[in-house]
């Protein structure tokens, strides 16, 4: 085994191709994957699984967009089929893609590396998390095969408990298991950050990616159990025909909405906070400047986690909630803008006068900043009581949360995947295709969803199979944009897989980044570091001088 003292100079990437070195990817038996407790391998298991669900959710979205090309229902056989399609899209994308996306893949892979640990605190529970996810996911796929569900991903009562004759109870269990997989992940992250930081890795030397994941984990462990109880109560109501939420049997449907959104609003931050962590890593690296306002960004992650728990009522403005509660929830929702804006301003301030390079991860990051800002500002419009009465349940809401979830979370996920792909697999991706994909995603995304803001403002309701003919032009634009978006998503899927055909050749630190994860080899050895790293500096100690020789391809591009 050839071991190298891993410091910054050795990692600069001008060594001749090395003889075989032990890496976490060495074992390739089925057992070595299915019974692994290595956080890096579990990250890869998750990466594969969530990609499957991303494709399933994507097929559903494509079908919906094609159906909406014309005002009349013609592609799908019935409105019910359309209902099943958007429910499938929502359930697959939210519970099985977005919630686990960054934390369970990049987070799992990077969190121990970034804090200088050998693994998470509870590796077996980490593997159990993936199995929980797979149980939930298998149930979800079985539901698709046996007819699907038509309640929307929100499972609103009493429709879901008394009227829908689709597979709601299995869906409740699928969500329950997926929920516990994220509880296990969050629980592991919190303990690991508390107890397993390398010597010198103080709280305020933690990368902001870690702060974001810590905040995310708090939401996972405190919010998810409430969702678990809410869906279990739905199952009980359906199975026993007792009225917990059904007003016809004496129940209260608004109680379900409260319980559901108590998790599902904070879940928005489960989806977007890790993305903010990714952006906080990419922006300073490609601007060659220390991050501006480190502590503000760190604290704003925690602030978002806390505020996220006290704004759920803004989903209930027109549900019959007390007007005074509505006032309070509206005001609290405005407050969310403060920590969000702190982050956006700090990222832009970091870029100010930086030596910016527009490599693929940075293109995705810049896309994130712009689209997240649009998503956030329209969120303020929606949290305004009077405006929400007009916009509630229209395409404006659909556009708003896609700007946050896709323009925010998915762009950050793709940017992070490009940024750490050399670390995860030891391979570089083709930069030109990468830039093309970032561009296609950005343009396609805006073409898909900006028209929906206008559609919603003009009054087109969401979740409808047919629509008034005057909305057709904007709908066709949206569908056309979706095809560009699909092209942008498809590219990385192909070239990432294509990059695996050659043996690992990426340097340890292709971006000359400062994090601990870049100080070990690419791909890392099983135990992450040859020696426990000692941390002596603040994070993001970039200087414009270091830009010399900065080239992710270097002598490796010639392969």
């Amino acid at each position, binding site marked *: 085994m050839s071991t190298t003292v891993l410091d910054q100079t050795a990692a600069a990437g001008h060594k001749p191709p090395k003889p075989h070195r032990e890496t976490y990817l060495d074992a390739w038996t089925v057992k070595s994957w299915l019974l692994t407790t290595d956080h890096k391998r579990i990250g890869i298991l998750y990466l594969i699984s969530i990609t499957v669900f991303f494709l399933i959710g994507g097929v559903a979205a494509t079908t919906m967009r094609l159906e909406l090309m014309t005002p009349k229902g013609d592609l799908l056989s019935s409105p019910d089929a359309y209902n099943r399609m958007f429910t499938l899209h929502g359930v697959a994308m939210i519970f099985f893609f977005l919630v686990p996306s960054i934390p369970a893949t990049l987070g799992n892979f990077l969190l121990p590396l970034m804090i200088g640990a050998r693994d998470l605190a*509870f590796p077996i529970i980490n593997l159990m998390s993936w199995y929980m996810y797979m149980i939930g996911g298998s149930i979800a796929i079985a539901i698709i095969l046996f007819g699907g569900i038509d309640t929307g991903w929100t499972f609103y009562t009493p429709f879901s408990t008394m009227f829908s004759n689709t597979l709601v109870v299995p869906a409740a269990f699928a969500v329950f298991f997926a929920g516990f997989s994220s509880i296990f992940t969050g629980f592991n992250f919190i303990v690991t950050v508390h107890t397993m930081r390398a010597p010198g890795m103080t709280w305020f030397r933690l990368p902001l990616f870690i702060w974001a994941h810590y905040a995310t984990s708090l939401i996972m462990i405190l919010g998810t*159990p409430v969702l678990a109880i809410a869906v279990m*109560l739905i199952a009980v109501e359906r199975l026993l025909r007792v009225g917990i939420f059904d007003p016809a*049997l*004496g129940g*209260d449907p608004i109680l379900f909405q409260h319980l559901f959104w108590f998790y599902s609003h904070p879940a928005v931050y489960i989806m977007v906070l890790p993305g903010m962590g990714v952006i906080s890593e990419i922006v300073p690296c490609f601007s060659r400047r220390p991050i501006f306002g480190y502590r503000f960004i760190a604290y704003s992650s925690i602030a978002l986690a806390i505020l996220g728990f006290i704004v759920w009522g803004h989903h209930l403005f027109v549900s019959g909630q007390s007007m005074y509660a509505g006032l309070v929830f509206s005001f609290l929702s405005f407050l969310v803008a403060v920590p969000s804006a702190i982050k956006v301003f700090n990222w832009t301030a970091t870029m100010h006068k930086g030596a910016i390079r527009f490599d693929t991860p940075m293109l995705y990051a810049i896309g994130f900043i712009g689209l997240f800002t649009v998503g956030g500002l329209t969120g303020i419009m929606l949290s305004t009581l009077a405006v929400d009465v007009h916009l509630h349940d229209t395409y404006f809401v659909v556009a708003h949360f896609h700007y946050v979830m896709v323009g925010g979370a998915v762009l950050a996920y793709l940017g992070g995947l490009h940024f750490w792909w050399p670390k995860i697999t030891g391979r570089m991706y083709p930069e030109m295709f990468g830039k093309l994909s970032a561009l296609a995603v950005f343009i396609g995304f805006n073409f898909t969803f900006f028209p929906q803001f206008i559609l919603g403002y003009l009054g087109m309701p969401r979740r409808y199979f047919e629509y008034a003919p005057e909305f057709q032009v904007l709908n066709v634009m949206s569908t056309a944009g979706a095809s560009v978006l699909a092209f942008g998503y498809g590219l990385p899927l192909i070239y990432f897989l294509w990059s695996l055909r050659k043996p690992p050749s990426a340097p340890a630190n292709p971006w000359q980044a400062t994090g601990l994860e870049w100080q070990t080899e690419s791909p890392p*050895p099983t135990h992450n570091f*040859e*020696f426990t790293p000692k941390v002596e500096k603040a994070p993001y100690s970039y200087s414009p001088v270091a830009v010399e020789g900065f080239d992710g391809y270097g002598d490796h591009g010639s392969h």
Partner: protein
Amino acid sequence: MDTATMGHTDAAAGSALIPLLSHQFDDVEQQSYSSILGMWIFLATEVMFFGGLLTSFGIYRYLHPHEFALASHNLYMWWGFVNTIVLLTSSLTMALAVRASQLGRRTELVRLLLATMVLGTCFLGVKAIEYTTDYHEHLIPGLNFEVPEHQLGEVVERGLDPRMMQMFFVLYFFMTMLHAIHLIIGIGMLGVMAYLAHINWFSGGGAVQIEVGGLYWHFIDIVWVFLFPLLYLISGK
């Protein structure tokens, strides 16, 4: 590659001396701290898990106080009281077990763990008696729920909603069964610990493991301490 030979020299040396140190930890203290913190975080999740139910209960109790009080009178308060005493005593034996593990008294530890398990099983036995009685009195929602005959007059006379009396029992069964499932898991966990203590498997006397288990056990007791007054001690007309 074998985990013990890879990576950190200090860890490799450590795991040779202390066989129960998992590879990801540097030393026993880090491992103990992680275990105990892990259990506290898990309990935070559990609090929210029961919290959603307690909130639902509180809202319906507030909206329908008379129906809930009337329904609650069908529970056997004395069985609940006996069970409270049983569980509180089990917490005592559990606390003593933690102490025994810290002092390295292995025989005493095993006996105290067994005593805790017996008390937990007693609790489940009483619960089973109660559930059986409820079944014979037609109080199980979704199966055979009917307003008991002796309360029918009062329900009609005061215009109460029998569906809300059923709601009380829905929440009663959901919460007590969820609690019972936790208790069954806890008894199983103590059984494993008692066995491991008996065969002297714990290298460090098991103080940390028993403490982590104890935290979980006390949590189950505390849940019952909330459930008992909420469900059994509703007074008023």
